[in-house]
């Protein structure tokens, strides 16, 4: 249940805070698409090439983490009944440091610059640790601890673990210590990032937004209570098993078998979500739900690709395998879901802020647009189709890079350009109506302290 009994806009940050995160994400999407257009097949040679690592971090930090951090700062008062302390300062600094840190990290990957690498790690480290501390203070103060709050807490701890492992790997400390098995630690880093941070946050948020926005029944209560903690403990055990493998105490098969159980947990979540969506009480097609369904379908697809790669060495040692898994996870699951969420969060926040101001002013002469009027269904549907074409081309590019890599870049560019345009249209409508309401407030001389 949303804990909004005492919700007030005084608790939530000004709308400009989440919006700056949301608008930055498609800019990184455009930059990633630009890389695909320029470098094409070279990005699909191996997951270890600096260029591919740069592209990967543009998606994970620039798009996924960007939207997730912005949404959490805005939604914690609603989801957990606990506002983030000093949210304007925290939001502004985190956004700046994560944005510049990601740009510098990509530059460092592409150029090999040690100074660039150090600056990137410093900025990302500072920005994410500040975010972690602020959000954890808010989560610590929560009075009624729901399954969503538990999952968000575990996701934010996973973000910190991902960051610390990233700093360890990026700083080169391990190399100077003579530590050789970097590849396994990179897997632990991305495991915490994808399964811990993205996966657990997605699960926790789903408990609220799927029944609320998609008008479905609630998730089963036992699944809500147990899944996220079980997966987090599972990740800790998996990490210990990988470390056991690195130091020669365990056979490499042991962490792989354990990972199979972890993946099963995520597949159960995806199957339950799709089942709930099929029981929707309202059968009107919805763009957010189509993005979400795409994301949920790719969870079992990723699990199947992983199983195939682990059962057949011929597949597992093929460089295409890791790239196929990466595209399926990052674009198929991650970008699908956050892109879909943006089409709910942005119109809802815009509408709610304006509605609140209109009611406060008792102004009936200025009409507040409804949610559908902020972003039209037609424009969102076209963007969804472009995204699907980008996803399909990127999947095919992992198998035939020379044929499909540029095409994937073209579609991903078009998809992000349209997403950016759709978000900008929503924000312009917000500003127009807000300006009209402020003009009304001025004309009747009603004091108004809630100016964004």
């Amino acid at each position, binding site marked *: *249940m*949303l804990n*909004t*009994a005492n*919700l*007030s806009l005084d608790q939530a940050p000004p709308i400009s805070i989440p919006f700056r995160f949301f608008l930055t994400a498609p800019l990184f999407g455009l930059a990633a698409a630009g890389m695909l257009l320029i470098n094409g097949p070279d990005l699909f040679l191996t997951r270890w090439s600096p260029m591919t690592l740069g592209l990967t971090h543009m998606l994970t930090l620039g798009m996924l983490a960007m939207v997730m951090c912005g949404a959490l700062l805005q939604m914690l008062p609603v989801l957990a009944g606990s506002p983030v302390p000093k949210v304007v300062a925290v939001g502004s600094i985190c956004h700046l440091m994560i944005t510049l840190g990601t740009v510098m990290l990509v530059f460092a990957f592409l150029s090999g610059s040690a100074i660039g690498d150090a600056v990137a790690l410093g900025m990302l480290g500072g920005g994410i640790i500040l975010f972690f501390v602020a959000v954890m203070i808010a989560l610590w103060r929560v009075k009624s601890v729901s399954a969503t709050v538990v999952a968000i807490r575990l996701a934010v701890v996973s973000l910190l673990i991902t960051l610390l492992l990233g700093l360890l790997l990026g700083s080169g400390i391990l190399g100077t210590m003579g530590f050789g098995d970097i590849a396994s630690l990179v897997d632990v880093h991305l495991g915490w990032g994808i399964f811990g941070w993205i996966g657990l946050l997605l699960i926790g948020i789903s408990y609220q937004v799927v029944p*609320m*926005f*998609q*008008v479905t029944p609630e998730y089963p209560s036992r699944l809500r209570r147990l899944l996220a903690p079980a997966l987090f403990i599972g990740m800790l055990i998996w990490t210990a098993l990988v470390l056991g493998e690195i130091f020669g105490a365990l056979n490499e098969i042991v962490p792989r078998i354990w990972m199979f159980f972890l993946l099963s947990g995520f597949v159960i979540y995806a199957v339950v979500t799709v089942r709930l969506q099929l029981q929707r*009480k*309202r059968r009107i097609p*919805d763009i957010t739900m189509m993005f979400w369904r795409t994301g949920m379908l790719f969870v079992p697809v990723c699990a199947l690709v992983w199983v195939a790669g682990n059962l057949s060495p011929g597949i597992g040692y093929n460089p295409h395998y890791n790239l196929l898994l990466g595209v399926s996870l990052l674009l198929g699951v991650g970008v699908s879901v956050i892109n879909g969420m943006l089409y*709910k969060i942005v119109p*809802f926040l815009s*509408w*709610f802020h304006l*509605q*609140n101001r209109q*009611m*406060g002013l*008792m102004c009936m002469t200025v009409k507040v647009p*409804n*949610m559908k009027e902020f972003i039209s269904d037609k424009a969102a549907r076209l963007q969804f189709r472009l995204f699907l074409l980008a996803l399909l081309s990127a999947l095919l590019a992992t198998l035939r890079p020379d044929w499909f890599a540029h095409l994937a870049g073209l579609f991903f560019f078009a998809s992000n350009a349209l997403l950016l345009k759709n978000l900008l249209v929503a924000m312009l409508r917000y500003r127009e109506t807000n300006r009209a309401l402020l003009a009304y407030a001025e004309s009747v001389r009603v004091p108004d302290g809630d100016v964004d």
Partner: protein
Amino acid sequence: MEIQLDVSMLEPCEPLEQTLEAIKQLNPGDYLRVLHRREPHLLYPLLEKSGFLWRCRDDSSGGYEIFIWKTDDVAAALDVDSATS
């Protein structure tokens, strides 16, 4: 008189929009009875700002009934009392 509004099958923010629209149409003595599948916490501050009072109770099917009336409408308040007692 009771005016009923069923928003239980609508997705956000249509329940809020329709409820806010419906309260504008209330005549003296009228109250609005909203059927909802969730408790609409976001509605309450907006009602407060518009000069309305509300009472929420669980219905028998796991949903909620929200009774809304104008703050100074004594007749509607009495009708809500008898409807919810």
